[in-house]
């Protein structure tokens, strides 16, 4: 059908919204509450346009096109409405831009600049609410909240967690966990998707920058950094690079400049995880263990099971997540090798994740010392690089330290949904058959679909596997497991939509296009590596020879496996 936008005729498909058509036509309409892929709520009214025949202004995000429709997206009336909305938001927003974590990266700030807000036309009472800093992962500042509801919808509709929602009415409206509890005591899984969707500084990670700097500045401490696969394909965005730029070498160089004594690759332990997990799966298959086995690398997902499906805890793989394995090895195997007192070691994990911060604080993850001492998000690392005065773009590539720096292509794909599954299958096939697969790329489990399934024949046995991302999608599968009619043997679950590449600690803001580009980069790294299966990692092989003996050995269990808690009540 034909519609007219700003006097220009354009084609539109029935059922499309005005916003969608305008986007295609290159006409910019500002939005705040709009989230691609979710039902529009039309709550912020930023996207209002004038539609001929309509009494009032109409939200472009929700209003469907009709034949012969005439739209004005930038009339004087529209501009005044939008500017007023911005002014009203500012009137109820703390004037703390200069000290805000989102300074320079805030949608309200940009809109105010775009619409030329130069004075405070409306002034009066502001919302007063206490900051919630109790959790180890996420801080919530309701005073900065503009109630766009993006976090609420992501938490409810994409993650299916529902830890936060609107409460109270009118000017007293506020987003909060039930009964105004802290996120720390609510059924929040700390995935951080609320943060990556927050347009302002109302949600942010609990910063570990300060304790990291203190460790670096302490001459007694040996500071050891490790870096997750998904960080290397996203960190560049913080410095203006294209999404999907691979900056592994620069990141290593930057970490050394910041003052890290050693820089390891979490991918080493990802390879190790695969060996342990593949053997655990084969063991369960052989000995009639709990099936389907569920992966355990995503700490948000683990907490989800602990809260909502505690009866399925035994289905979870007992493997620690890779950075926790790495931390445990740094403070045991590597410390012994180097003759360093593990008490002096400070392990910093650079993660795309906020739930990892909570995970690092789990008392069961560590022996005398915690496996990991600090967790920095990709964003925090970028802050530290800036503070350290490093010109990131001009850094020369550097290499990880040995031996915990070697990794295969199987490890790097952990960063994308389906990657753990693919890596595990590569190694499981080899472990059972003693042969490498002809084609090691499992395209069925790649991509951004919420649930991806595959049947894999290994020596005459068919394994039914699934890779799931975004927690909403796992619910029906867990319900089926509960009911005893799940067809699967092995399921990979990543809490965040797209997996770690779109984790709660990644550069802001997040969207599908960026996630796709980061994903492509992950697979590019894999493709360009000579060794693409975890069992080919020589340093891992050496680790077993020198220290762990064999997969799932007693020592491996002590260092690399864990247990879970029922958080149901």
């Amino acid at each position: 059908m034909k519609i007219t936008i700003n006097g220009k005729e354009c084609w539109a498909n029935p059922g499309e919204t005005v916003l969608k058509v305008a986007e295609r036509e290159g006409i910019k309409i500002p939005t705040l509450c709009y989230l691609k892929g979710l039902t529009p709520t039309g709550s912020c009214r930023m996207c209002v346009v004038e539609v001929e025949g309509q009494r009032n202004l109409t939200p472009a995000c929700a209003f469907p096109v009709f034949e012969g429709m005439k739209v004005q997206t930038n009339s004087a009336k529209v501009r005044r409405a939008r500017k007023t909305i911005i002014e009203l938001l500012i009137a109820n927003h703390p004037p703390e831009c200069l000290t805000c974590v989102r300074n320079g990266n805030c949608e309200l700030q940009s809109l105010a600049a775009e619409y030329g807000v130069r004075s405070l036309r409306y002034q009066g009472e502001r919302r007063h609410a206490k900051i919630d800093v109790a959790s180890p992962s996420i801080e919530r500042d309701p005073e900065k909240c503009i109630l766009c509801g993006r976090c609420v919808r992501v938490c409810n509709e994409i993650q299916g967690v529902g830890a936060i929602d609107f409460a109270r009415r009118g000017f007293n409206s506020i987003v909060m966990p039930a009964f105004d509890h802290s996120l720390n005591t609510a059924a929040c899984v700390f995935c951080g998707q609320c943060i990556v969707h927050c347009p302002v500084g109302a949600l942010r990670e609990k910063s570990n920058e300060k304790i990291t700097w203190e460790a670096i500045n302490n001459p007694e401490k040996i500071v050891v950094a490790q870096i997750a696969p998904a960080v290397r394909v996203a960190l560049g965005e913080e410095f203006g690079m294209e999404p999907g730029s691979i900056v592994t070498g620069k990141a290593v160089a930057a970490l050394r400049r910041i003052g890290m004594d050693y820089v390891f690759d979490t991918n080493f332990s990802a390879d190790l995880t695969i060996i342990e997990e593949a053997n655990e799966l084969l063991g369960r298959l052989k000995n009639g263990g709990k099936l389907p086995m569920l992966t355990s690398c995503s700490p948000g997902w683990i907490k989800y099971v602990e809260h909502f499906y505690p009866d399925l805890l035994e289905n979870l793989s007992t493997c620690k997540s890779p950075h926790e394995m790495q931390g445990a090895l740094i403070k045991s195997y590597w410390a012994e090798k180097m003759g360093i007192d593990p008490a002096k070691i400070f392990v910093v994990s650079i993660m795309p994740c906020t739930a990892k911060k909570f995970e690092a604080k789990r008392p069961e993850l560590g022996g005398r010392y915690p496996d990991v001492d600090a967790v920095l998000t990709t964003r925090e690392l970028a802050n530290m690089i800036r503070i350290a005065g490093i010109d990131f773009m001009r850094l020369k590539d550097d290499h990880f330290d040995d031996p915990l720096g070697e990794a295969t292509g199987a490890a790097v794909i952990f960063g994308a949904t389906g990657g753990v599954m693919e890596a595990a299958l590569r190694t499981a096939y080899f472990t059972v058959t003693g042969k490498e697969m002809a084609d090691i790329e499992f395209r069925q489990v790649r991509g951004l679909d919420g649930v991806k399934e595959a049947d894999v024949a290994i020596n005459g046995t068919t394994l039914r596997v699934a890779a799931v991302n975004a927690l909403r999608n796992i619910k029906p599968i867990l319900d089926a497991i509960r009911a005893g009619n799940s067809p699967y043997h092995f399921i990979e679950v990543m809490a965040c939509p797209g997996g770690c590449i779109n984790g709660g600690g990644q550069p802001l803001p997040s969207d599908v296009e960026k996630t796709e580009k980061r994903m492509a980069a992950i697979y590019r790294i894999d493709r360009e590596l000579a060794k693409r299966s975890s069992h080919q990692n020589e340093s891992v092989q050496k680790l077993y020879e020198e220290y762990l003996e064999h997969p799932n050995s007693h020592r491996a269990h002590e260092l690399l496996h864990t247990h879970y808690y029922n958080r149901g009540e």
Partner: protein
Amino acid sequence: MARDTFQQVFTNCRHSAENPCSYFIDCITSGQKCHQSEASNQRLRRLKDRLLLVEHDHPVFLVGMGTCGLANGAQKVYEALQSELAAWDAKAQLIPVGCVGYCAREVIVDVKLPGHPRVSYAEVTPQDVPAIVEAAKRNEVVGDKLLGVYEGVSRNGWGGYPVFQQLPFFKKQKKIVLDNCGVIDPDDIDQYLARGGYSALSKALNRMSREEVINEVKNGGLRGRGGGGFPTGLKWELAAKAKGDKKYVVCNADEGDPGAFMDRALLEGDPHKVIEGMIICAYAVGADEGYIYCRAEYPLAIQRIERAIADAKAYGLLGRNILGSGFSFTLKLKKGAGAFVCGEETALIHSIEGKRGMPSPKPPYPAHQGLFGKPTVINNVETFGNVPVLLNMGAEAYASIGTQGSKGTKIFALSGNVNNVGLVEVPMGITLREIIFDIGGGIPNGRKFKAVQIGGPSGGALPESVIDTPIDYESLKDIGAMMGSGGLVVMDEKTCMVDLAKYFMTFIQSESCGKCIPCREGTKRLLETLERLTRSYRSERTQEEAMQRFQGMIYLERLSEVIKSTSLCGLGQTAANPVLSTLRYFREEYEAHLYDRKCPAGVCAELLTYRIDTDKCTGCTLCARKCPQNAIIGEKQKAHYIIDEKCIRCDQCRLNCKFNAIIVE
């Protein structure tokens, strides 16, 4: 006392909820179709005469026990009557009825003696009861509490008393929807049936196609009575044509406007009429399930609805295969938790679904995608109440009432500074002046009329200059108000219009759901602007605060326009109306507050100045002694003075002065 039912008076009637007969209602209205015999017809006539109080052997007393009656002590009156009647005639009937509309004169007690017309007493207290019963024993009337004698039956020697229906309060009313309210026992489905109840449903199911029902409603010109005035027939047609494996009918009984109690009274007084309208609607659009969404603050209405649903079910008028038509409809009651915004249809839907009551953008309209995503008709209580009336009268007769664009009647809740506070049903096209002065009896205490707020917080305050406008949807919009659900709050000269706007803005602000920015944030700033106007310069601590008072006023209209044109739902879109209408008609009052720092009506306490008329002051010192602030000084027998800085405007000096020496400006 076991009572006869309609089925018992019929010969061999096989009708039951499980095995319904399509003639059941027709038999009640016009005599048994099958097994016709003189005996059975006679039994039917006798039963109807008894139910309609035409012929009965024992005295009948009826007490107005709607919420208004109960608030005025109807329970005590009822109990007093109970004991008096027990001592007199064991077979005397005592029936609680709904509100007849004359709330100002509650408790209303009607007496119907065999062979006499029904009489109505007003403002009855328990102390009046013995006299009323004693008089009844002698077939007499107590003159001083008498409101009127019903017309219709032989007046039998009571000709000297005023005719109830001719009282000024009732004379200009046209009761077609409220005709049963306060007249019949709302808990007795037989009384509703005896007065032709469910005959419209029977007509629709037995003699009309779905399309014919919709066309009839369209031709009758019925428009939504909840405020918006959307043509009801059109709404039904959209839902009927919408594709869906299931459809719903929802009755919006979440009446929340300050000063509105139409829906409550109708549900308390005649619940079956609303239910009948809903069943007809369900038949017309092809729905098989319905909800009445009634606010939990209406406990009596809820009780009545529950009883009525159960009775209708037992009679086979709700449930499977209604009157043998093959059409099935079940009805549930859902209690609202008290959010004003849940009166907005999409918020109401979310609330029924168990979600937070917040509106969502339209389209999709409920007629296409409503409750649980299915096509849904949502109409207001009064709209459904009009449906049986329209079908019984026929579209043509119904459309002959009212004006060109607005047909039928409208129920208004008349309150505020008016003599006859109450519920009135008037034909569309009547003027506000007629309602306020003829029906409402004008302004009490000899004061002057100032304004009438129509349409609750979404409407506007109208001054005397426009109250001759005929009431219909369009004319009201033209003068900056809206029909609204039917609240009419009358205000006299002692009302401050800035204070009024502030009141409504406070209401809107605390009832805004908080979803969209213009409503949530904008109404707060409007409210603050109005608050600054009514605050004294003494509480403006800085120059900046004084500047804000002006700044707020400068942008008041601009902000109001943005809120109006940008808000998500009707609540926000109309939120600024009280401000805009008072600004339009009472601008000088705003200016007095802003520039002169005075409240001409003497309402905004902070802006008042108290001083003593030195000519009148005798120096009795009483005021100085009563003043809690020691703000009054003066020597004995000499004129006193008030120190303005200390005065807190508590009014004690004026209240205590015996010489009228305190001047308040």
